[in-house]
Every structure is written in C-alpha cells, then in structure tokens.
C-alpha cells in the first residue's frame, strides 16, 4: 500500500521532485501513446505497493512546512507589498491624480 501522487506535470512538479528526492521523471517526448499509458498504469500499480524510508519522509515534511506553509506565504506577500509602498510618494501621486482628472475633463469636452 502507498500514497503515491502520480502526475504528468511539468515545471513546479519537477522542482518538488528535485527537492524531495522522491520518485522519478520520465521524459514524455517520443513515447508512443500506447506505451505511455502502459507505463503509467504499471508505475501506478507499482508505486501503490511501495513504501518509503520514513526518515527521509520526515525530512521532506519538515522541508514542506518551512517552504509551503500558508502563514509564511502570506507574511512574505505583506512584506513585499510593504516594501513597494514605502517607495510611493503619496503627495506627488495625489497631485498627479488631480492633473489626470483635469486632462480627462478637457478630453471629454473636446
């Protein structure tokens, strides 16, 4: 028995694979469809029966919590937005807004 996550994903999945050191990647290119389906079916059945090293898994879970926790994510977002805001000159922006209103008005009159 096992809990495999089986995917044809690219991109981020590969990153997870590299970080976690679990599983393997199979380049899809040039594999005929029938072969690919057989391969996926076989791997699914095989991995359903596999067991992993629990120590390795614990390390992975710790890694996940440090990297993918929602609280960390949201705090980082706030930090990023704060740093952006700190560079804004509000007074200048308001003056510019006023000018834009005027421009819009003149344009609409024409």
């Amino acid at each position, binding site marked *: 028995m096992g809990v495999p996550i089986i*995917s044809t994903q690219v991109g981020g999945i590969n990153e997870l694979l590299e970080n976690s050191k679990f599983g393997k990647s199979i380049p899809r290119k040039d594999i005929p469809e029938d072969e690919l389906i057989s391969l996926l079916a076989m791997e699914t059945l095989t991995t359903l029966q596999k067991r992993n090293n629990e120590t390795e898994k614990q390390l992975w879970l710790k890694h996940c919590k440090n990297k993918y926790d929602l609280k960390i994510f949201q705090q980082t977002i706030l930090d990023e937005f704060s740093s952006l805001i700190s560079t804004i000159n509000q007074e200048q922006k308001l003056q510019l807004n006023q000018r*834009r209103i005027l421009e*819009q008005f003149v344009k609409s009159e024409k």
Partner: protein
Amino acid sequence: MIKENFLTSCALIDREIYLENGGMCESIKYFEDYDFWLRLASNNYIGKLLKEPLFKYRRHNFGLSAQVNLNVPMEEYMAEVRKNNPIIFGDLPPHHQLSNHLPCYKTLDHENDIQVIKNYSQTLLETPFPYFPEGFKNRLNYISLLDYSFFSYGKEFFSRQGNSTIKKWSILYIIPWMVMGGADLYDLHILNALKESGFYHITLITVIETDHVWKKKFSEQVDEIFSLPQLTSNIKARTEKLLDHLVISRNIDIIVTRSTNVGYQFFEKNRKIYQDIRFVDILHLVESENPKENSQLGWEIFSKDYHQYLDKRIVASHHLLGYLKETQNLSTEKVKVLYPAVETTFCHPYPLPDNLKTFLDPNSKTQKLVLFIGRFEEQKDPLLWVKVALKILTKDSLIKFVMIGEGWMKKYAEHHISKELKSNSFFFPSLIDHDEVFKYLSASHALLVTSTYEGVPIVILEGYFYFCYFFYFFFDFHFLSIINNSNSNLYGCPNYFNSSWRN
C-alpha cells in the same frame, strides 16, 4: 454664475438683446435659462438685482424641474451648457484650484463613478458577446457590470471611505478568470493576506463570464469587484478609460495583474504617467516548453515584453524563474519566488464522504481508491488518465477511481468508460468546494494530477500535508512525473478526438 444658476425665470430682459444672443436653446431640456444667462455674461452684459419680491413661483410634482433625476450626475445636464459657453468654461483654472472653481470635478465622486460605469455598461449592452458560455443565450439574465459591480460594492465603498479614519492603501487587482484552480487559489491566498492585514482596500477586476462558486470566495476577500467583457485580448479604449477612472478615483497605490493582456498593456501605457503607482505581475505557470518553435505562446513569453514596466514580478517556483532566465533572458532583480502554500490546519483526518460510502465496498480491506482532481479540459488531460485507469483495471479490478471536476471533456470520459463496461469502477462527483477536497484526499490511496504546465499545484501540496498526518505510518510518498518536452500543450489530446472518443 460659474458655480450655480442663481437667476430665476422672472428676469426681465430687452427683447432685442434676447434675440441678438440667440434666445434660450430649445435643444437643452434643463438649464436652458442658465445657458442663456451665461451667454449674456460672456458678451459682457451686466444684470441688476431688484431686492423686492415681485412675483410668486409655484412648484408642483408635474413640473419639469420636479422631473430632474437626482441620480443623474449634474455634469450630464451641464454638458451642453458647458459646450455652448466656451468663454466661461473653456479656460479651466489650474488644477490646484480646480476644486474651488468646479465643485463637480473636485474628486471623482459617487455620481461621477456611476456615470463612467454607465457609459461603460452601455457599451457592453451594445457589444455582441461571443464570450457567453453555452446555455447562456439570454444575456439579460447575466449580471451586468452596473448591477453587479457598482451597486453591490461601490456604494458601500464610498460610505465606508467617508466614515473611515484609517488610511488604507489601495490595490487594483486584475485577474482574467475565476475558476476552481491552483492559480486562483494562489490569488485568493494573496488577497486574504492583504485583507487580513487591514491596511488595504482592494478593487478586483475580472471578466463577466466568470460565474462560479469561487466568485463568492473572491468577493469575501475584496472590497469591490468589477466585471469586464474580457481581459485577455488587447486593451480597448473604454476599458482603458474605466481602469483610468478606477486608478484615480480609488487613489490606487499598487496594481497587480496576473496573465492579462489588458493589465500588461495598461502598465506599458501608464508607466510614465503613474510614476507613483507600483506595478506587480504574478506568474504561476510555464505554458510553452519550446519557445523557439512557439515563440508567441504562453504568458511567460508574452509578459516578457512588459517586464521593463514592472516594479515586481512574483513567480510561483524556482523552476519558472530559471526558465525565465534561460529562455527570456530576464533580469531577476525584480523577481520574487513565492511558492504556493497550504493551510496546514486543514490537514487532519476526515470521515468518508457520504457519496463514497455507497461507491466503495465497505467490507473490502484491500480496495484502493485513486483520485483525479481537475477540470475536464485539455490543460488537465483527464482522458489520458481515463485510459491509464482502464489499463490498471485490467490488472487489478478492485481499484476504484474518483474523478472530480467538470468540463467539456467529461462526457467523452464517461462515454469511453461506459463503452468499456467499467462504469462501476468510476465515480464522477461534480465540482466540489475547495474545503471538500480534503475529505476526498483522506479517502484516497493515490492522487493523479495532470496539469500540463502549471507551477507547483496546490492540491499536491495539500495531499502531502494531509497524508503526513493521516497516513504517515501506513503509506509512502511517491512521484511519477512525465515531462512534456513537446511544444504542444495537449498531451496528444487532439488525437483522441480524431478517433473513437468523438463517437
């Protein structure tokens, strides 16, 4: 006189002067007298006030004045008057004196907001919609921009702004679509963080066609939502005008866009104009694996032309960042890698969902459940997994498959399964709310994810976190990843439809 019409209909005037100056304009429904007095003033005629009551003025509910619609902005009535009197209104005062001279242009207020959006809405009604989904023949049933956006949120916004003593930073957030997907959950997590901080007012722009349970989720995280016809094609003048209006009237500080032409093009056009607004892009996927062969495909490629206008680019994985560096030669100074995230507090065991109780054999200890979650669309390639599942069933007929999601490919999947007489092994729940996903994860032994080009899918992370609490001692974790090196976004899906799948 510029500020208001303080003369009344009792003015006594020389007939010749009246005729010389064109009299009162009959094409103006309201304020025709004001228009005339202004013309006289423009021609240097001077009036005199007699401080003596000489007439009586009676008003009733059927008079023309009583019919003036107070909901229509004054500017609408005044437009003709201004046009007829260029001497009075042609030379506008400097912008810093604007509020003193022209009260209605002091700020873009509630009335002005209605007017701009009304103009926009009118355009929507006049524009044929190729965007309506199947079954939505009567567009009048659809939520219009005006009904949905403004009256639901706009009034509240203004009243709240008026009473609020807290200065909030203002964000304009543009997303092209709201579906039940990883990218949208990514957006929701960002919006939730901003909302929870209490320091941001958020105006969300999305498309009209969006009609999904997640729209409610989004509306809970933002202060107002505007729905436009579309956001992925080129920016239109009206759209630009509306965006411009929102930017000014909300005093926007940060504009965030995610995979929208409209957003990128707005950045390009306004980078120099709005120097004190920060532009942010969110990129979560790799759409093209082979940029040389398919140079225009994919948001990551499309958006590179706009990189110079950005203040910050948030990407969902280092893989994506590496890809951008290698293929697009982008500078990474502005780029921040921010992984999708998981609410770990959800990760606890759930009881079996009710509809699975009848589907699974309660007496079987060896029966396994394999789960697919995703839209039944090309991007998720569900048909590949149907074929794989059918193949698996030839080896182990006890395995059951649950495929969660909706989409135009679903009927083909169901058809093919019934043709193979394997319907008993499959269960197709409809779309479920995100919180429900955990219940299914809890019941499953394997998770199939086939998003062809997204970043790190959140559902996989959820799977990881979930299993770590529940299946920790019983199961393992294993990935099987198939890399798509072709430049096609569809893993051979078109081939499916040339053959028996269509039948």
